[in-house]
């Protein structure tokens, strides 16, 4: 394990975790409008994948997308400001949690429509191929998307046109309360890649180093003209589907606890300290930095101005 890389991945995952827990707190206090779906427990997937991307590469995300945005490099203060509906974020408070865009960081949007990002990412990859831009596009989506037409049609296009796109399924076993095994007979997402003659890879979604390696291979393949890969990351959300759902009426407490025991952040921390040769001091230093970063983000968002009411008509067409 590369010590420096591992510490960076640890820091990034911790940012995502602490950010979401803060959002949860602010939301419960009634400070954030709208709806939020938190990424708690799944951090290793976004972080492991996005660590391999260039700033100009593109990411299409989902309704559970704060983590993807942060991992792609959108500053925490901007993501927080957007959740607060403030004017200082990239989307200027027009989008919110499920419609957040920051193209200057290659972040092409969270999405309120399950599956919709898959054809969009595929199209962005077509554009990259036509423009010979060298960009790679990543589509994140949940297990809930893979029974939709968008998944099938998107992957089929990516495959037949050999596009520079990587499909990353975050299989957290549930789509709202619907268990994946109740929604489909074939519960191996990765196996579906064969239907499109694509490589499929299953990876432990709690192991950021494993995800990093799998994503690196897929991204390199896409960039060098080798076409798409379907990655299935087996993961779990430690929280409810959205803030307000306790998430325990359709999942047993034992199951939730078991997955929490495999926390990607805790296990990397232990690994770093035990056999990674990283000192407790440097780990705690990283943790302090994350908290300062988060405090700054919250303060920025809280103090940011609301959008001017008079701008309501701006940017409908351009």
């Amino acid at each position: 394990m590369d010590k420096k890389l591992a510490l960076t991945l640890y820091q990034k995952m911790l940012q995502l975790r602490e950010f979401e827990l803060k959002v949860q707190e602010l939301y419960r206090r009634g400070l954030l409008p709208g709806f939020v779906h938190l990424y708690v427990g799944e951090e290793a997937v976004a972080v492991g994948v996005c660590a391999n991307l260039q700033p100009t590469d593109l990411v299409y995300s989902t309704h559970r997308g704060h983590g993807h945005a942060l991992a792609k490099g959108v500053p925490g203060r901007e993501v927080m400001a957007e959740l607060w509906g403030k004017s200082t974020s990239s989307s200027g408070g027009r989008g919110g949690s499920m419609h957040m865009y920051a193209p200057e960081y290659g972040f092409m949007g969270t999405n309120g429509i399950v599956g919709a990002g898959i054809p969009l990412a595929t199209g962005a990859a077509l554009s990259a191929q036509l423009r010979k831009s060298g960009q790679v596009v990543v589509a994140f989506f949940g297990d809930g998307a893979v029974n939709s037409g968008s998944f099938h049609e998107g992957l089929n296009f990516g495959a037949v046109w050999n596009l520079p796109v990587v499909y990353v399924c975050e299989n957290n076993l549930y789509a709202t309360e619907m268990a994946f095994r109740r929604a489909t007979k074939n519960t191996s997402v990765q196996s579906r890649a064969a239907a499109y003659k694509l490589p499929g890879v299953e990876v432990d979604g709690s192991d950021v180093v494993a995800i990093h390696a799998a994503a690196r291979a897929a991204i390199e393949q896409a960039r060098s003209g080798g076409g798409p890969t379907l990655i299935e990351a087996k993961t779990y959300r430690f929280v409810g589907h959205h803030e307000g759902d306790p998430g325990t009426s359709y999942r047993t407490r034992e199951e939730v606890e078991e997955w929490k025991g495999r926390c990607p952040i805790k296990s990397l921390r232990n690994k770093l300290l035990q056999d990674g040769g990283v000192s407790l001091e440097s780990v705690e230093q990283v943790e302090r930095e994350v908290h300062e970063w988060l405090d700054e983000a919250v303060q920025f968002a809280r103090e940011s101005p609301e959008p001017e009411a008079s701008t309501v008509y701006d940017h409908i067409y351009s």
Partner: protein
Amino acid sequence: MPEQLREISYVDAGVEALREEMQRDSTIVYIGQGIGPRGGNFRQTRGLCPEFGEERLRDTGICELGATGVAIGAAMAGSRAIVDEVFLDFSLEAMTQIIQQAANICYSSNGKIRAPVLVRSAMGSVRNAGPHHSHCFYGWFASTPGLKVVTPATPYDVKGLLKSSLREECPVIFIEHKALYNSKEMIPEGEYLIPLGEARIHREGRDITLVGISKMVHIALEAAAALEKEGISAEVIDPRTIVPLDRARIAASIKKTGRIAVIDEAPAMCGFAGEVVALACEECFDALDSPPLRICSLPIPSPFSPVLESQVIPTAERVVKEVRKLMEN
């Protein structure tokens, strides 16, 4: 020297616009079923593939949802995309991508992401195709903020509007009419553009304003000719684009004639005709000599039988009859 004119068909005018714009703008990619070597189900891309190649004219399988999403994604990322649904009816498969993604993206991203995608299709009843291939639901798009909706009625308009639409920064729903593909008109030899949002006055008149789009322009013109023989002078206006709507020209005409009838191939409920009637009431209330009139397709699923179908869609005879009645009151 007078402008050189030549005759061209509605479908060829579209091909010509595409050729000129694809030559001018190398970022244009055209996606759809049968639009490559085949040259289009309606011949609407005939000759383009040999010139621009299969890189830019991308034939697809039967997957309108995916193809439309791919086109929008390509547009978001720096290309200009055309997706051809072939029949307007088939765009229903792709509606979520058009309405939820394409229409919202610019606004939600605070203007940072544009989706210059042109969704092309052909609508309307032709040769008794029946309910799955005859729809005219442009109103659904027109009621969605963020989309522009273009419905040309003649070859001249097809060419100028398609070229302009391919220079817009936003998604454009470009709907041709199947029954018009073989119609002909004289158009200028050289390049020209028609801005979106400018109505065309096809015929001047004093007694009533007839507003129609697409094929209904021709029904209105036929009716106007018949009404003239009865001493009724009808003005015929084609807004050409539903969004943006040329409210000023339409209102000016209504104020001049004092009467308005809208002819619409879609059913009346919540539709284009009602929108123009609302405009008349809002902007021309004092000038109206009679209640605004809607002459629309009947609220009936498109019947197959030629006898039944002919009952549903407005005809020149029906327009004449209803206008005559209106004028008598």
